[in-house]
């Protein structure tokens, strides 16, 4: 039994629940015979990947759902072996190059070249090209993106590339200009409710509207998260009635507590405590940018109006540094110390003025 998110995922463009305009456009693109490279982008849990699979099905027919997993081995320049899992059908191939870490360029180059150089041999195939889906395209390194850019031009006749990313800001301009950009926005609450009810109907059970509302409020536009929470709730209290306590993931509550630590005391000793918490979070695979964002949002809720802008400014400032640097903890900590110092000065100054 799989998770509901996967089990009830729509399979065709027609069965998608929202963004009907987008679906119609994708459908006409797929039937036009002139399919471009596409870049899907939008917040997580908005349905990018669902739309990609639906589009592929529209392009190639149901054969695209017969997937198999291949393990491929690539040799890095220093002769290290990289094992990459590749999901593929007869018509498309799906890779997550960020699995290869620093060596994503090798994977991109080798794999794309190989695919591009083989023609589609199935005469019954609806399209003459193969599709390559690249997940997490925004985590591709510069080198890999440059390699991709060249390949996209060179092998256009045999291959189409479908990129999937959260944000276009980390993709280089040449790639963006070679793709048709498709923004998949997060669903609004009505659309989410519709989807949740659909899931409940399929499961099947009846979903009380209050529960649905609570889940949607909590999910922040992330439909995957909403469905996962629904499934977890259903497992915990099968009738979904009464007061529901939506269990946040541990790391989120943890982040909130870290924010409380920052606000409640500002001292060098507290810096050390917060650092230990950050280490703990980092060692649980929570991306540092997410940590910074979650903690910052929580801190902002708790401080005086006049400080909010500054705190967010520094959060953005250290987030950039975090991307440039290699040791994330420095930047997280630098932000914390900055916030503490701002906060302390704020009170110190206020005391002085009221004293006068």
């Amino acid at each position, binding site marked *: *039994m*799989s*998770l509901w998110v*996967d089990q009830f995922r729509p399979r065709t463009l027609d069965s998608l629940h929202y963004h009907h305009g987008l679906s119609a456009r994708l459908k006409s693109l797929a039937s036009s015979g002139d399919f471009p490279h596409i870049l899907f982008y939008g917040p997580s*849990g908005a349905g990018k*990947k669902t739309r990609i*699979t639906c589009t592929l099905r529209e392009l190639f027919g149901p054969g695209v759902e017969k997937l*198999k*997993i291949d393990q491929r081995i690539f040799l890095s320049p*220093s*002769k*290290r072996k990289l094992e990459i899992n590749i*999901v593929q059908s007869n018509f498309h191939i799906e890779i997550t190059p*960020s699995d290869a*870490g*620093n060596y994503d360029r090798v994977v991109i180059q080798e794999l794309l070249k190989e695919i591009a150089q083989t023609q589609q041999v199935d005469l019954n195939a609806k399209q003459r090209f193969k599709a390559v889906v690249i*997940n*997490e395209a925004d985590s591709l*390194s*510069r080198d890999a993106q440059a390699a991709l850019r060249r390949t996209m031009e060179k092998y256009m006749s045999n291959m189409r590339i479908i990129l999937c990313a959260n944000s276009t800001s980390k993709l280089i301009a040449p790639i963006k200009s070679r793709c048709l950009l498709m923004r998949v926005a997060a669903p609004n609450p009505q659309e989410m409710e519709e989807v949740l009810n659909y899931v409940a109907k399929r499961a099947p059970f009846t979903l009380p509207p209050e529960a649905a509302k609570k889940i949607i409020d909590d999910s922040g536009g*992330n439909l*995957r998260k909403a469905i996962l929470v629904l*499934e*977890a709730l259903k*497992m915990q209290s099968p009738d979904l009635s009464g007061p529901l306590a939506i*269990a*946040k*993931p*541990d*790391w989120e*509550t943890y982040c909130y507590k870290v924010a409380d630590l920052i606000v409640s005391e500002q001292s*060098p*000793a507290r*810096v*050390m*405590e917060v*650092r*230990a918490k950050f*280490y*703990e979070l980092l*060692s*649980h*695979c*929570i*991306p540092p940018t*997410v940590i910074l964002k979650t903690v910052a949002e929580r801190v902002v809720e708790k401080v005086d109006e006049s400080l909010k802008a500054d705190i967010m400014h520094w959060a953005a400032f*250290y987030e950039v*540094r975090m991307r*440039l*640097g*290699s*040791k994330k*903890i*420095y930047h997280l*900590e*630098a932000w914390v*110390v*900055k916030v*503490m*110092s701002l906060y302390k000065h704020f009170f110190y100054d206020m005391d002085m003025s009221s004293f006068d």
Partner: protein
Amino acid sequence: MAPKPSQKKIKPLSSKATVVKLETQPPRPSLNTKKFNPLTAFKVPSSSRKSDTDLPCSSQTSSAGKGKARALPNLRRQDAEDHDDRMWVDVYEPTTEAELAVHKRKVEDVRRWLHEAFEGGPSGTLTKYRRILALTGPAGTAKTTTIRVLAREMGFEIMEWRNAVGENTLSGQFDDPSEFSFGTSDSSSSRTYVPDGEGMFSKFEAFLNRASSCQNLFTTPAPSHVGSFSQSPPTSASTRQRHIILLEDLPNIVHPATQAKFHAALQSLVSSPVSATPVPVVIIVSDTGVRGEAADEQMDSGRGWGKSNDGLVDIRTVLPRDLLGGPYVTQISFNPIAPTLMLKALQAMLNTHFAGSSQAPPSREILDAIVETANGDIRSAIMALQFACVGEMNGKTRKKKGGDKGKSVLLASVTRREQTLMLFHLLGKVLYNKRKGDPPNASASAKDVQKEKMLDAQIKDPPGLPSGLKQHERRASRINVDALYADSPIDSSLFSLYIHQNYVQFCDELDHCDAVADWLSWVDSSGGDTWYQANPHRFHLLTLGTMHSLPSPVARRSQKIVKPVFFECLQKEKDAWGGVRDARGWALGDGTSQTDLRSGWSHAEVAMELGGVLKARDAVMDSALPRPPASHRRFSSLSFALGAPFGHTQTLDETEVNVPLDDSEAEVLVRPTRKATEAEEGGWLDSDDIEEF
């Protein structure tokens, strides 16, 4: 060491030509009146070169000639008289455990391992797991000598692999020629020169195979066997001769293909069933220091691929990772020789050497200086001592006073092993942020205060800053950043981690913290994506920035310098990613039972969003649902505990020279020193413990 013609006269250190009679030297008319030159004093005169003592590969000296000797006095007076031109490290090689300057516990560890390897320990089953012993440690810490001494005491033979480079060495490859017929003269003509590593390696494999399986054909040493083992008491003829394989001169591991083959050879050796007469393998790897700069930066990305092309041989390149973490390999790491032990050893050696001689042994000050400069390397200490004694003879004809001082200066300049600033002192210098005119330490003696004043007088005050920048004005620092950089044992990246771990306790105010943290952040993010774009001034910037930001003077409140927990976090994160992969596999279906594979679920999504469902599944305990893999708790469960520090912090010790090496590579699963110390503290391991591996 190419023999220098002894007639060649390099200008002696004293302008006056000195006639030296080495009292123990055999009379050699042509040589006994010559100008004595300290630089060539150790060289064997060409006339005596015929003796085989210096041919490093002859089977006679193969046990002693390695020069790894941690010499302790050995009363072989006639030896010393016959060959006084030999190195003391060879002459006074220890022969019993009591003479070793190694810590007793270490020797005991090795002995126990060997014993278990041969006998199987108390339960008799340990032989299976005692296949490879890896001895690591800095150069000159008596790794090889310990093995040799134990060989004598426990009565086993050492078969050692030497990389052959020519005919000479070929016949001496094996300590016991009787066992390896292909090393003898009949075949050596065809094997005189093997140019390619290929052939070399197949020979190595053959050596390994034969040595580990064929030795029991030769139950007694062959009559031709007159080498080093003649001193070891032959075990009673009825018992089997026991052997170990010693690998010190390894094949060219830096070459990836050879390394792979080497690993494969070791693997097959380990996986082969243990024979009735086990032949354990002892691998000796001397740690080499790393002083990388930008190249080390890639390492921080947690993937550690910068290391592999360094050409650095350490235990992790020698042994494949799964072996190193596995049950068949034991690692014992030797520490630098403690100064007290070394002093005792040197003193004892001098006593033997000068017993009955008219010469006066070198003064205590010189001995102290030698011990200090040797940095725990006893071989270099003995070399220095020998040199000092030679110099002593030289100085004899001159006036007694003043010679001592000059000598220690000379000694320091000649023998000083490249000395790195201890990590502890480096951090102390930066973090205590001493500036000109700081009040002297309360406990400082008047002499120290005077010295500080003298030093301060030499430091120039910086020109004042314009009024707009007054808040940046500081007194001149006592720290010379360039010198610090030159002496630093660690690279800037690791240095920054240490600073980061420790700076907070040196700050008085939050503002100080703020400034240091900002410097750390800035230095880390400066430079480009790739290693060659890395900022080359990181060390300077960080040091100057830290010192600028810290209060001056730093308040003393018994701060403890702690090792960074960064690597521990990295390790935990790695484990957690394993859990993420498991959970992702679970969410995606394994592809066998499900007809349709589900795509989607990036790793980050699993880590951040799947936690709730996984916990709910765990709580429900419904056997109908497929259980998620238990490893998911490594990333999904996080409990908030106030005040609990991350992991356990280790205080940095003043005596630890070797810290950076361990930590900078801590992304590797095994952390050697910590393991070793834990084992030491935990007392003996029972055989039961070992079975659980």
